[in-house]
């Protein structure tokens, strides 16, 4: 009796060839993006921004009593101001220690699970928002494109901080997940410390 598969000898080859991965093309998808989408993706593709956003969100969710509204009301105008200033092109590059330094401070508070006074929290959010805004200078283009790009960045940063904060608040209801948040905080502290060392070495 002949095996059924032997009737089409090329079939396994076709399946295997389909499974062979193609080469990855770094930034291939981002190169074509412009305007709103480009701004939307920018904070997600900048690791320093991701660290600060996650740390801010975790800090927001850890605070007791939970208050998501006020820090976000501080974040939104300061982020808009930072982005608007970045669009003028006066500051081409921000101080290299700023974002890792902010991530280190915020994540240390998360790792220690410290509730800080509202004033200090608002100041931290304002500083972080301005720093992210200044570091998000849009690509040169028409005024409409630039505005759309800045709007995309503004929306995604506010949304992510609020989102991470909400989930952190939900997770904080159980003891083991509170510890999980602290572990993530300690990882961000470790990453920021190493990055600061790299920058110092430069």
């Amino acid at each position: 009796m002949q095996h059924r598969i032997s009737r089409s000898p090329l079939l396994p080859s076709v399946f295997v060839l389909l499974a062979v991965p193609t080469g990855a093309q770094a930034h291939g998808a981002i190169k074509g993006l412009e305007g709103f989408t480009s701004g939307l993706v920018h904070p997600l593709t900048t690791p320093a921004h991701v660290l600060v956003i996650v740390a801010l969100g975790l800090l927001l969710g850890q605070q007791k009593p939970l208050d998501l509204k006020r820090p976000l009301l501080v974040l939104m105008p300061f982020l808009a101001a930072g982005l608007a200033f970045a669009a003028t092109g006066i500051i081409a590059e921000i101080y290299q220690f700023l974002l890792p330094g902010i991530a280190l401070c915020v994540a240390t508070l998360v790792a220690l699970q410290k509730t800080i006074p509202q004033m200090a929290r608002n100041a931290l959010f304002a500083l972080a928002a301005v720093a992210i805004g200044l570091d998000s200078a849009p690509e040169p283009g028409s005024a409409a494109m630039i505005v759309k790009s800045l709007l995309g960045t503004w929306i995604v940063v506010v949304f992510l901080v609020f989102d991470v904060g909400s989930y952190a608040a939900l997770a904080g209801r159980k003891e083991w997940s509170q510890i999980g948040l602290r572990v993530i905080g300690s990882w961000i502290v470790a990453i920021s410390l190493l990055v600061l060392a790299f920058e110092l070495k430069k």
Partner: protein
Amino acid sequence: MKSESDPNSMPARKTSSQIRCPADAIPLGPWLTTVIFLLLLPATASAHTGTGAVGGFLSGFKHPVGGLDHVVAMVAVGLWGAFLGGRAMWLLPVVFPVVMAFGGALGVMGVTIPYVEKAIALSGIVLGLMVAFAARPNLKIAAIIVGVFAIFHGHAHGTELPTAANPMTYAIGFVISTGLLHLSGIALGLLTRWPRGKIVVRSGGVAIALVGFGFLFKLL
């Protein structure tokens, strides 16, 4: 019809699709073609793998798992934490990456620390024995022991950093990899909930200590 008993007859050559096989056997013909196809595929060139954001992440992620002496110590931290139970289970893995990053920062900036390799081997011995003997010291003492060794581990990684790597993604990969090693140690350590599991975990401690001895006396 060809007779098998005829010694003068030439055996007919069969094509791959004609190869007969038993019903339960996989025919070789199609698979042979597949293998030949795969052999003809060009390999992707991987020059400068440590560069760029993705390269930096992969380089950092692979670094902590690249040395057995490092791996056993990371797992031992998780095992010991699980053995100590309660807050210690999570405190040690919180302390270790932070202090290790501090040691790494010293290494990156070129600050020399003596006897790094010996201290790393010693960390395997001490942490392994702590697990093997199910030692339960005060939480602060446990954190100090883990923290001191973490500086040496971090320093070794910091000095071996590839210069071409993207610093941010390298650090992210490095810390996540270390954290995952701790988590795997904790997961294994959770076996201590069962009596036989305790024996397994303590035996793991003995094995870790032996690896430490092997590195200290350059047997490994």
